[in-house]
């Protein structure tokens, strides 16, 4: 067991509480950077996919896990990020400008949508965002002159300072690009958590009345959360477009929205780790299922709805038995080892709580 002796307030502000943690994460990053020399291209592509989903997960996590606003329409923002980035590049902007611009544009769109949305609570927000996600599909078709509608678009080649990056021909470079963006987004998320705005998000999530009494402007805080969340999601959407190579109105469907939300719940709401754990599940579940199908001899038979069905079942089990998600389970195992052999069985017993109503009565 490690004990932190804190000698200044700096300790609680630092990114890493001690040298050991710093060492662990530094090693993780070094391994991640060296990965293209360790793995073959297929698996590298899969890891890239995990990272892209993790960025999208971070975006939604900020809104749902941190601010408590469940969005079932985040695929819409993936779409905005993806289309705007590619369209900017088609207009001749270099990737290094088009990509952040796409993120900012998505953030602005998110903030504009937040203006009416911040007045909605719980289920009303959920249904409004579902509607948004459904409308996105139709809007992309209706905006055919810019979006090419049903026929869709192809992602152009990325060029950064003369270096060409493409998913298929240079998977290692694409991977590094995604890795860099993942690290930047994670840092931004972390920074928000340790500053006033991040705490205001948590305040809005847990009690709007007392947040107001503490001087937090609810609407503005929610709008900020929407903006940053959608911005990060937009970046992930652009990367998804480059990863897929081609996309159209059906790429960012309502199913993607729902998958994204389920992903962060399975991973563990309210934690950065959760976004990554959830992304691993989402990205590897199809592979796992096809391996399992081969094993029982059902090889080539396609079973429609199998993936979503299994995914749904996993989610139900998690909500029932481990509401804190994979991250919660991970923490418990870690604490168990750190305290060994002093961990008690009832240490993680959940407290009974009353139905805390948000219904206005």
């Amino acid at each position, binding site marked *: 067991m490690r004990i932190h002796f804190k000698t200044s*307030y*700096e300790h*609680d*502000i630092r990114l890493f509480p001690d040298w050991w943690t710093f060492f662990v994460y530094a090693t993780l990053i070094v391994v991640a950077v060296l990965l293209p020399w360790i793995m073959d291209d297929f698996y590298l592509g899969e890891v890239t996919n995990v990272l892209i989903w993790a960025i999208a997960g971070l975006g939604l996590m900020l809104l749902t896990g941190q601010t408590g606003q469940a969005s079932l329409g985040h695929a819409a923002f993936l779409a905005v990020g993806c289309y705007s980035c590619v369209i900017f590049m088609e207009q001749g902007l270099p990737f290094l400008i088009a990509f952040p611009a796409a993120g900012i544009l998505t953030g602005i769109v998110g903030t504009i949508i937040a203006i009416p949305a911040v007045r909605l609570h719980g289920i009303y927000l959920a249904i409004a965002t579902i509607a948004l996600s459904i409308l996105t599909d139709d809007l992309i078709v209706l905006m055919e002159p810019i979006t090419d509608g049903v026929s869709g678009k192809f992602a152009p080649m990325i060029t950064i300072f003369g270096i060409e990056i493409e998913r298929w021909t240079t998977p290692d470079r694409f991977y590094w690009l995604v890795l860099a963006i993942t690290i930047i987004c994670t840092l*931004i998320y972390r*920074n*928000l958590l*340790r*500053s*006033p*705005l*991040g*705490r*205001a998000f*948590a*305040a809005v*999530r*847990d*009690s709007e*009345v*007392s*947040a*107001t*009494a*503490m*001087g*937090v*402007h*609810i609407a503005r805080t929610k709008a*900020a959360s929407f903006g*940053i969340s959608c911005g990060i999601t937009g970046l992930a959407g652009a990367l998804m477009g480059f990863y897929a190579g081609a996309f159209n109105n059906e790429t960012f469907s309502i199913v993607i929205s729902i998958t994204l939300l389920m992903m962060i719940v399975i991973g563990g709401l*309210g934690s950065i780790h959760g976004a990554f754990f959830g992304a691993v599940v989402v990205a590897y579940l199809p592979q796992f299922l096809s391996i399992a199908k081969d094993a029982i001899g059902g090889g080539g038979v396609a079973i429609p709805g199998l993936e979503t069905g299994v995914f749904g079942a996993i989610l139900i089990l998690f909500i029932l038995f481990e509401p804190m998600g994979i991250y919660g389970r991970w923490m418990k195992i870690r604490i168990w080892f750190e305290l060994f052999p002093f961990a008690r069985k009832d240490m993680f017993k959940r*407290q009974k709580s009353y139905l805390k109503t948000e219904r206005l009565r």
Partner: protein
Amino acid sequence: MSSLLEIKNATLKFGGVVAVNDLSFTVEEGEVYAIVGPNGAGKSTVFNLISRFYDPYSGSITFDGKNLLDRNADQVADLGIARTFQNIELFDHATVLQNLLVGRHRHRRTTMLEEMLFTPRVRREEKRHREAVEEVIDFLDLQPYRNKMIAGLPYGVRKVVEVGRALATGPRLLLLDEPASGLSVEETQDMRWWIDDIRKQMGITVLMVEHDMGLVSGVSDRVLALADGAKLAEGTPAEVQSDPAVIEAYLGAGAA
């Protein structure tokens, strides 16, 4: 010298029910002012009027000469008014420290962009907030709970944390909504000392709603008795307790 808080002829109706009826009172700088009354007398409603959660139907509320009715609910804290809630409204999924730091929100000077990049200025500000919060933690003896989640804390501690969060805003007027309800005898005793210290050491004016007459007569300078949203009696604790109208309201018409 004008009063710190001045409520004049405030009336509030919910549908046909009059919750606060033509109520006027003033709270002077540096005093502890208590509001008592039976359930449903409109005590918490008065707090919600001051917090700007409700709009009065008529009347005026001024704080330090400024018209409170011009402000939104989230601007009240900025004037230096902090409050606690009757049914604790803490941020359950955050630590005690984080809860208290939210109290510092009105002193936030950094922008969203700076915080996303965590510039040196944000770091300096964070330390400043932390120092202020640590003073409150020392004052209320909350050290053992600093990094504990609210969701796992006992009721009595949560009540203290809520007072702490209000103090962390650095208020001039502190509104305490039933600070002793649900507390044990010792915890109530602690609360009494803290209220005394808040007034004497920190120089913060306290306005509180409380049922526990022991606590009320122990700490307050003046007491206002409410019934059906209207003023029944006002004066020192002893005066109010011996007022025949108050006795009747509390014990019912049969005892009079």
